[in-house]
């Protein structure tokens, strides 16, 4: 553009593509989950099926669909950044910025001739910048709170299970334990957002990337809930059979 302001071609694509980095963690988590998935036709699988209100195969399908949620959300963001232009038309457009609605472009190189002669190379609108910063800080605080609420939910589940260990101990289930450990790991990762929320466009990258981590954390809680539901069914069955024997 000029020797004072350099245009970064495809920066938007890189901006959005690098936001997908948390997916590497998610793929690793998916591979770990597979270790604890018991084939529905195996002996153990058939035994587990009897404790569920529906066939084990459907439980596997549910786990897979839940696992897909963060993948879908992340790829959707990249698709909109790459194939949708500023007017909303479908076209290959990886260069123009695709920022959240309401996020202003605060710098312009369209300057008056007399200002250019005085050595001005751009105008910078600070009111616009202030609003952008407000938006980023708001997003960051909202993300931080959501990470907390999700992990607080897990904490309450753990407290409940501690009180009911003699009835059903989910801590012996490796599938649930993997989910809890990974959710808490994501919860710790989520907290660092408050240290990186005051750097303007670069903070926007942080909030958007951490939003993907949050969706993964939410799915972990969903998977824990799903696994506990299968336990509750067994618990009720045991209780029911005990009542019958009386």
């Amino acid at each position: 553009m000029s020797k004072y302001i350099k245009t970064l071609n495809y920066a938007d694509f890189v901006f959005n593509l690098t936001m997908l980095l948390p997916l590497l963690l998610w793929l690793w988590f998916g591979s770990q989950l597979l270790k604890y998935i018991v084939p529905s036709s195996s002996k153990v699988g058939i035994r587990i099926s009897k404790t569920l209100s529906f066939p084990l195969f459907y439980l596997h399908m549910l786990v897979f669909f839940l696992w897909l949620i963060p993948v879908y959300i992340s790829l959707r963001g990249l698709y909109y950044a790459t194939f949708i232009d500023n007017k909303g038309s479908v076209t290959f457009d990886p260069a123009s910025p695709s920022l959240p609605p309401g996020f202003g472009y605060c710098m312009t190189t369209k300057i008056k001739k007399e200002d250019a002669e005085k050595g001005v190379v751009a105008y910078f609108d600070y009111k616009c910048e202030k609003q952008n910063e407000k938006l980023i800080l708001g997003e960051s605080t909202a993300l931080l709170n959501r990470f907390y609420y999700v992990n607080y939910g897990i904490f309450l589940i753990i407290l409940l299970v501690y009180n009911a260990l003699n009835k059903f101990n989910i801590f012996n289930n490796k599938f649930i334990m993997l989910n809890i450990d990974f959710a808490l790991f994501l919860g710790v990762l989520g907290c660092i957002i408050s240290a990186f929320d005051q750097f303007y466009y670069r903070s926007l990258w942080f909030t958007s990337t951490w939003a993907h981590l949050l969706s993964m954390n939410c799915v972990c809680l969903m998977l824990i809930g799903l696994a506990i539901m299968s336990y509750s069914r067994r618990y009720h069955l045991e209780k029911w059979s005990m009542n019958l024997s009386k």
Partner: protein
Amino acid sequence: MTSLFSSYNPYNYNNIEPTVMLISPKNKSPSSFWIIESVESRALTFFIYIGFWIFILYGLETYKLGQSISVKLGFSVGFLLLLLYDFLYNYATQLTIDAQEQKFTEMNTTSTNIVLDDKVFKLNKTRGLVIKKSIFDKLKKEKKLNTITVQQYRDNLYIKSLGGIDGDEETPLAAYALSGRLMLGGSYLFFTVMTACIIASHHNKKLLASMLPFATTSGVLSVAFISLWWMDRDYTSLTTTEKMKVKIFIAAFSFAFTAVTTPFFFV
């Protein structure tokens, strides 16, 4: 030693000619991240970080308890985050979007200045100017432009009116809001790590023993240190306190990371 550090110019990159920002005193925009740290203080942060880790590992002999992979991971992640924070704090104004071209752009802005005597440029409440550094230096030399850096301006204002007039983003209250968010993040961090410790305590006492020293250190740093409260005498000290607390928070995160990744590598 000092001259070695001072000769290093962090802005000399990408062959972009340097520019300077000019803003009006009426402008109430945020400015803390325009105050660049000295290279000495930036280097000192990393020495303290490494020294503190050595103290925790060898001084308190936690290396005997912790999982070596988790310890290496936690230390490396914290170090990389400190590097990232250092980069962002000292280069944050460089990345912008040009509304005219609708493209991401990069600038080599060396300082942000408040224009006290505005005869050359017509600045208003919201619009700032990006001008060539060579022109800025020339106007200053010819005494056609009276400016001071944003840091000096805020320092003066801080003493007079605790940071500025109503609506100013850079009052102490705005800085305390950042500390408040860090505090929130720190307490959430501690809460999450302690939940992981509760689970570990149920499974294996050895696992708990290898997590607890790091979890406790992260809690002490992220909650107790960030809660410390004192009044700063000027705006520069206020932003220095902010930066210091963020760096302590990153160190706390590195210990929390060590604790929370331990169950994945525990044998």
